[in-house]
């Protein structure tokens, strides 16, 4: 095994070849952007980009890769010089500051004496207009003499425009430069939409091609882990990955397809012997806690109060609902939400009937808050995690449970002869459903009572299997029967059966969306799996 450190928080420190090696899911975007850069000729249209996505989604990775590919390709390198403004450059409060920093980086990168001289001339000049004019001249001269343009990469554009630069006249100046200077293309990032780009009265309204970076799909997440393991020649992990896959799918509902968390998961799982999905989630939360704690410390207290409250509420709350929860005036809450949105911690979304709700887009950040809150909430997450782990259980795991289930059902219904096969649980439920209601109810009750004699975890798992099967058989009677029986004989903790109960309620109500809308996203996803199974939309996938 060889060591290839991947810096989750500072991808610029990661060897570009290593970033390439683990790159997944964004190939088409990268190709599109590089294609445009390659095709560009003087006088042609220039497309400026704004990449938006929550923290850890891979924005900096993408920029680093673009820069790397430009430098590695003779054709692109002949046309463009990538200049990356560091993510945490707090010293930029005017366009002249941005230009000074850009010319400094260009000078360092190319060693061009004319550029270095230009930098030396302007770096202490406090006349903004002069600095702007002279640095632009330096870039123009560089472009004429070298034939190369500049790809300016600016991270956290939201902070730059809404907290650092702010003045409209400055932003008008930026827009003028971006329109008129034929040698310049910008690729910017932001954790969130920003007023500077979305408000029609703002100079940069719709100025960029906005690209939302989505979360990785489950497949892409798996792919990333495989590539990560391959990079380090970690054969043991590669072999383990298939076994780990079902738990990975369960964890996905809590981590989302966040690349940073995926890499953290690799670090955890490849270095430790972890026995289950709960431990994996716990350790991941441990790992991320210092980072999230630091983040919370940075956020002003009142805003932090709102964030915490939002994390515990069902996803998507209006300012009025939130104000009630935190016992603050709605106007004050609105103002605080605006600031949180500008910083990228929350996002406004339009829902039905033009209602604006606010969500925390970073899923794991929300989960982290919830886990810190109370035992009850922790319990809910844990049970949900088990639901998903069970749902995605491997064929072998399901076979084992099915055999037990079948044995119990044979005992309960006595005269039924049932073949034992890997999907026997489904077959079993189909046979059972043909019987009359009194027999069915009695049979189910007997089965569940018998389960109670098994070790608790095993019993619960079998009960879950029965419930899943009932949904797959599209039989709400059996679902209701099992739910009634499990709460009587196994555990009355409703939280344990929550996804099934909510799914049953949803189906019984003829799919009243309000039932789902008041749930957290993870619960909605769990319910959706059951509903899809009910609608025959889900297949038991074997990995």
């Amino acid at each position, binding site marked *: 095994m060889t060591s290839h450190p991947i810096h989750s928080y500072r991808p610029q420190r990661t060897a570009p070849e290593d970033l390439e090696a683990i790159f997944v899911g964004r190939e088409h975007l990268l190709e599109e952007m590089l294609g445009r850069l390659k095709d560009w000729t003087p*006088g042609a249209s220039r497309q400026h980009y704004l990449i938006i996505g929550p923290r850890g989604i891979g924005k900096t990775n993408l920029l680093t890769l673009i820069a790397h590919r430009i430098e590695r390709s003779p054709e692109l390198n002949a046309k463009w010089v990538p200049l990356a403004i560091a993510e945490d450059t707090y010293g930029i409060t005017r366009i002249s500051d941005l230009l000074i920093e850009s010319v400094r980086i260009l000078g360092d990168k190319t060693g061009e004496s004319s550029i270095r001289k230009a930098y030396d001339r302007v770096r202490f000049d406090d006349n903004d207009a002069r600095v*702007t*004019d002279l640095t*632009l001249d330096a870039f123009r001269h560089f472009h004429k003499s070298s034939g190369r343009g500049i790809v300016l990469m600016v991270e956290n554009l939201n902070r730059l425009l809404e907290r650092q630069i702010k003045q409209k006249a400055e932003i008008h100046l930026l*827009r003028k430069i971006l329109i008129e200077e034929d040698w310049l293309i910008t690729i910017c990032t932001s954790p969130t939409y920003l007023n500077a780009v*979305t408000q029609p009265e703002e100079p940069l309204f*719709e100025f960029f091609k*906005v690209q939302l970076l989505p979360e990785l799909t489950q497949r892409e997440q798996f792919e990333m882990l495989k590539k990560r393991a391959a990079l380090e020649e970690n054969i043991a992990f590669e072999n383990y990955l298939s076994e780990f896959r079902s738990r990975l799918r369960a964890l996905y509902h809590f981590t989302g397809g966040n690349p940073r968390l995926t890499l953290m998961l690799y670090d955890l799982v490849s270095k430790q012997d972890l026995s289950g999905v709960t431990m994996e989630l716990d350790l991941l939360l441990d790992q991320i806690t210092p980072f999230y704690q630091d983040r919370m410390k940075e956020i002003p207290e009142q805003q932090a109060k709102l964030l915490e409250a939002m994390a515990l509420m069902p996803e998507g709350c209006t300012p009025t609902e939130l104000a009630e929860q935190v016992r603050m005036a709605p106007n004050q809450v609105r103002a605080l939400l605006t600031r949180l949105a500008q910083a990228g911690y929350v996002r406004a979304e339009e829902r039905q*009937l033009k209602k604006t709700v606010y969500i925390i887009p970073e899923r794991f950040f929300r989960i982290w808050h919830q886990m810190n809150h109370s035992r009850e909430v922790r319990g809910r997450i844990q049970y949900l995690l088990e639901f998903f782990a069970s749902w995605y259980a491997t064929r072998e795991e399901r076979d084992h449970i099915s055999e037990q289930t079948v044995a119990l059902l044979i005992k309960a219904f006595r005269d039924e002869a049932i073949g034992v096969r890997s999907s026997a649980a489904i077959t079993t439920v189909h046979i059972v459903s043909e019987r009359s209601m009194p027999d069915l109810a009695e049979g189910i009750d007997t089965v569940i009572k018998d389960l109670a004699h098994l070790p608790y975890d095993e019993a619960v798992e079998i009960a879950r299997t029965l419930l899943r099967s009932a949904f797959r058989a599209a039989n709400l009677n059996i679902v209701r029967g099992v739910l009634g029986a499990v709460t009587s004989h196994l555990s009355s903790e409703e939280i344990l059966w929550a996804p099934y109960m909510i799914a049953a309620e949803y189906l019984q109500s003829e799919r009243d969306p309000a039932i789902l809308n008041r749930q957290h996203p993870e619960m909605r996803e769990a319910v959706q799996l059951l509903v899809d199974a009910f609608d025959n939309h889900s297949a038991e996938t074997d990995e």
Partner: protein
Amino acid sequence: MPKPVIGGVPRGEDLFGREELIENLWERLERDNVLLVAPRRFGKTGIMYHLLDYPQEGFRPIFINVEHILTAGDFMVELMAILLRDHHFARAVSSLWQGTKGFGRFLQNLPSSIDLGGIKVELREKTDVPEKWISYGERVMSLLSKEEPRLLLLLDEFAVMIDSISKRDSEEAKRLLHWFRSARIAPDTGTRFVIGGSINLISTLDAMRLVDTVNDLSVERLQPFALETAAAYVKAIFASRDIDLDSELADSILELVGEPVPYFLAVLLMAILDRQRAIGSPISADTIKAAFEEDLLGGATSVVFQHYRSRIDQYYPGREAQVARAILGMLSRAGRPVQHDTLYHIFLQTYRKPPSPQANDEFIQLMKKLDNDFYIVSRDGAYDFFSRVLKLWWKTHYGFQGE
């Protein structure tokens, strides 16, 4: 082959479907100066750049984006600098400083490393152009009025500049507007001007009682694409990606968009292409529908429409805003154009007025305003939303509000 350009300025063949408009502009410019008017994202800057990149014989265009300018002196510095940097006009403009030391000598010995920026620095710091901008303006315009080829000055974001200057010094803004008008209407001047203005320019100047400073300009209102142009654009965009799009699918795209506002069309086409590339399979009706609903109506672009909504409160005073919203809400819910009388009834109801000739006049004025501002269009005595996309968005978000 054209490529959609989102937000930036389409150049060359990326500016599609404006040939006739541009031909008309050149014809007009033989006699008149032009005010190019359209909502944001209709393509004014692209057209101005086209005039710059492909000048007609007899004209030499200069383009200036003036949105960053805060004083009339800054404007004159910007104008002079760009003229001094132009090989053709530099000689004439330099003559203003002929024989002088300082700036005159600077101009004579201009090194290649000095570009526009360096000239602006010198003009600001070593000359009295910022202070005596009117005098310099008059002289330079006079010098250039007989130039061959003729100077064609393309001024983009003119309204923004006037707004910025007037906020600092309304008298200076007036003087600039008056000077500018006199430069345009000077007898026998060959110089021509194209001013890119948002739809708010006239109402902004009206509020300042300065609308007469632009009454010499020939107004050109940018329209969406004609249907045939839009169809050709769709075909060309897909052809540029080697995609032979089924004509039925192409028609469905145009049907979804309705009035083919170039920006909406470009965004939708890009969204379809992005989706197609991501899923790797041929474009289907589902792809198009998803792109329309999620990326155009529901995505980042939906904020375009919010602009139309918030403009009502900003530029339609008092009760007029309420009436306008009621009318637009009604139109958004209607499956077809709504008759004049029906909307007049809503007008009277909202205003709580009895019918009268005066009320009718006020109603017609309001409808004209909504038409001018690209909300609605009138056909055969009935009204409808100008853009189907806007109509759908309006219906979803505001159509059922009790207004």
